[in-house]
């Protein structure tokens, strides 16, 4: 797929070849290219707060020589005055060459892309999609394991509401994985995703006890129990401290296990893990830069 002028909305829009192509371009974008996107303007429409995603988009654009304008909360945009997202997108398209949007409502990025004549990158739409996160997760796995193929991937934490684990499951499904979904029953991977894996003939195990499967894993992807996604605060209280991973976890694991986390973390992963060779989550966050550079350059037609 030629990504020039294409919207980047959902990981489900990409084929295996598309994903591999983006990862290849990202590899060539590890260093800044200060002239590549000169005279291009990226607007950031952030209707909800985000540190990593917004800053890394801004840094990625500026390190390619482009310029940035935008807002970082709904209260500083016209949404506060009741303007529809459709209208906001129609207006902002006149000020920029590419738009990056984060919005708390699912499907918002797709709608903004339909309203806008300029390409749109989804930087997270509620519990739905966050494709640049998924791409940087794939990029990290490829970098630390040398391959994406035939890996045993454990996911632990909130698998019910966590969009990162849903998208990563969909994307990794192209690469013959074995999944270990580790969560209490109430936060397990939704049945609809499990049904899809069954249809595709992909191996998976659901388990509530991490210790039982930790020795099988090549990658352990840890997620936060997200307070903001719980419809019922009582439910949240019940599960918020369910997993607390520390160095005890490492007694039984493969030597080359790598632990990932989309961050921010709360208390599900102890700091004592940070300086072990297993932890790659800070490197993972940094991998957002080459991925976002690659997408900006591809969509703006400055690389193929």
């Amino acid at each position, binding site marked *: 797929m030629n990504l020039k002028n294409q919207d980047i909305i959902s990981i489900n829009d990409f084929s295996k070849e598309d994903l591999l192509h983006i990862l290849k371009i990202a590899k060539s974008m590890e260093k800044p290219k200060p002239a590549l996107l000169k005279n291009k303007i990226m607007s950031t429409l952030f209707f909800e707060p985000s540190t990593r995603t917004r800053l890394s988009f801004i840094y990625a654009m500026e390190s390619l020589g482009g310029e940035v304008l935008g807002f970082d909360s709904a209260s500083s945009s016209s949404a506060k005055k009741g303007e*529809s997202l*459709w209208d906001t997108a129609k207006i902002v398209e006149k000020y920029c060459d590419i738009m990056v949007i984060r919005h708390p409502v*699912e499907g*918002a990025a*797709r*709608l903004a892309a339909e309203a806008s004549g300029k390409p749109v990158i989804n930087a997270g739409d509620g519990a*739905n*999609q966050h494709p640049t996160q998924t791409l940087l997760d794939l990029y990290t796995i490829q970098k630390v394991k040398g391959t994406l193929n035939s890996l045993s991937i454990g996911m632990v934490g909130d698998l019910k509401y966590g969009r990162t684990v849903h998208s990563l499951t969909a994307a990794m499904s192209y690469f013959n994985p074995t999944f270990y979904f580790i969560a209490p029953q109430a936060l397990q991977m939704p049945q609809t995703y499990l049904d899809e894996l069954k249809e595709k003939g992909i191996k998976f195990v659901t388990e509530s006890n991490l210790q039982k499967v930790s020795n099988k894993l090549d990658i352990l992807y840890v997620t936060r129990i997200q307070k903001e996604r719980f419809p019922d605060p009582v439910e949240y209280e019940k599960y918020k401290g369910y997993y607390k991973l520390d160095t005890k976890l490492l007694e039984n694991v493969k030597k080359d296990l790598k632990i990932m986390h989309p961050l921010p973390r709360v208390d599900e992963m102890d700091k004592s893990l940070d300086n072990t060779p297993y932890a790659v989550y800070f490197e993972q966050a940094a991998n957002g830069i080459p991925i976002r550079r690659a997408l900006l350059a591809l969509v703006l037609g400055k690389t193929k």
Partner: protein
Amino acid sequence: MKKELTISAIKDGTVIDHIPSNATFKVADILDLKSIKSMVSVATNLPSKHIGKKGIVKIEGKYLTQEEVNKIAIVAPDATVNIIENYGVKKKLRVSIPNQISRVIKCSNPNCITNVEKIETRFSVLSKNPFKIRCHYCERDMNKEDIEIV
């Protein structure tokens, strides 16, 4: 024959029969019959051997296309559609679930943009039997029991 005459026969147009009674007015809505200028008869709660109570819609002077017929598949999958010419049945159309569904269904996800902004819903049909659709916007899957007609 007597039952058929509960509402008058039409000369040219479309007759939709065997609509479940509770879906009769939804069919009228989906096909936007209120905007049709010719004679339209809508009858509901008629006795039916097959489905207990049924609805019938007769539209004078308008021939529904297969695409239009498919729009009612969600609410009246077993309806029969006859195209009438000069009081006789010229063609029978079968209702079949389309690959894309617009407007008719409400997304069951309250946090979907279609429930926040005034835009038409769109779904792609993943499977016809069992019925499963995916929202074009929030990408949530819905089964038959999740469906609410707009």
